[in-house]
């Protein structure tokens, strides 16, 4: 489903990802852990085409993100190519990023209507189902600013799912929430993860949550994968010193 091949990402002089190789199978749920600044967000942003690789390639479903075929030459991807790939990917951000100029329902329907051409009534029906699922059926006409952080993040999750992505990217989606709101959002994501065949890439510092939802954990440090394995193994018997230190630090926090 997703393949990183010798991906390098630099911001100026700063090398964030160093020849990164990994792949994720369809339906696989992978959690990325690692200290702050190790490049986890950058990986998700590259996939979402919010950043471009410096070198190397990223494939999604066999299609290269950065280039496309024209005749038998490879040329840089144009907007149409990017949009075709983005269609498969959804993302939920740490800061929710709901659109403040629209009510909750409109936040969810805008993309299906404008980008997929779904008729508005149909999109609204679907949006109401999603709101039901995230426990906010009564908030459809509410303005986002009147919702708690946890509610806003649920709307953002519903908004991403409304596009029916094959891959969902979650970047520390509970980090900006008040502690008492975290578990509600996590429970929701756990349900979503176990319900379908969604491929999930999740960055989190909540190790219990990571253990619950993921098939695989990747431990990053300084733009490299230092450890890759099932959560039971990584969390209970990490092979690397760096992973042990990191897990200890997270536990202490």
């Amino acid at each position: 489903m997703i393949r990183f091949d010798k991906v390098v990402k630099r911001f100026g002089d700063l090398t964030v990802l160093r020849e990164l190789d990994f792949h994720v199978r369809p339906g696989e749920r992978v959690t990325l852990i690692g200290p702050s600044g190790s490049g986890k967000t950058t990986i998700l942003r590259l996939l979402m085409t919010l950043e471009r690789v410096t070198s190397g390639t990223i494939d999604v479903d066999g299609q290269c993100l950065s280039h496309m075929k024209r005749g038998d030459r490879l040329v840089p991807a144009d907007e149409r190519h990017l949009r075709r790939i983005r269609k498969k990917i959804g993302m939920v951000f740490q800061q929710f990023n709901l659109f403040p100029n629209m009510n909750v329902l409109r936040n969810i329907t805008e993309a299906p209507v404008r980008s997929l051409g779904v008729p508005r009534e149909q999109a609204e029906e679907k949006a109401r189902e999603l709101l039901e699922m995230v426990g906010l059926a009564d908030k459809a006409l509410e303005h986002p600013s009147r919702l708690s952080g946890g509610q806003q993040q649920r709307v953002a999750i519903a908004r991403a799912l409304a596009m029916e992505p094959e891959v969902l990217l979650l970047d520390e989606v509970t980090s900006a929430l008040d502690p008492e709101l975290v578990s509600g959002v996590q429970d929701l994501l756990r349900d979503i993860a176990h319900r379908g065949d969604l491929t999930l890439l999740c960055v989190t510092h909540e190790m219990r949550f990571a253990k619950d939802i993921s098939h695989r954990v990747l431990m990053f440090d300084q733009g490299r994968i230092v450890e890759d394995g099932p959560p039971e193994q990584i969390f209970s018997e990490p092979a690397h010193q760096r992973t042990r230190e990191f897990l200890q630090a997270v536990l202490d926090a």
Partner: protein
Amino acid sequence: MIWDWDWTREILPELLTQGLLVTVQATLGGAVLAFVLGLFVALLRRSRNPFVSRPVGAVMEFIRSTPLLVQLFVVYYVLPDFGVKMTALMTGIIGLGLHYASYTSEVYRAGIDGVPKGQWEAAIALNLPRHWIWISVVLPQAVRRSLPALGNYLIAIFKESPQLSIITVVDVVGLARELGSERFRYLEPMTVAGLFFLLVAIPASIFVRRLERRLGN
């Protein structure tokens, strides 16, 4: 000089109907033009094509660096040479609109820049087409942020509109001058005209400040 109440009563209706009407037309016409044109200019200046963004930027810089009065003259006396025939008021509205578009475009630009990056990123992640990102996400937020500053420019256009009398538009001030010149007495008509600006501008400023506070978060 003693205030002549009888004469005041006599000229008041004319000032308030004819004069006022022209002032309001010039102000609203100029403002609408400035608000619409300014938005297009702001968008053109963001164009990735330098052959679009550069010239538009240069023209706006030029307009901002020369007096409105000069521009009014140019528009009034030069456009007819190119076969463009318009009333003086129409010309004045275009002059005001062009001049203030160079300012409102900067307001919109700041408003657009002020839309958080996360809004763009969420919209891209949702695969919204570029033009819809502008129309349904960025511009509504940018315009909302711009409203107080636009309100201030509306007031400025209102107060600068008497400059149109230089191209023979008879607005409330121009009319006051005409009335005054009949008797060589300007105290009453000019005072009435001035009061009229005061009566509109002060509540308008208060309203804009309220708006600023309401939107300012």
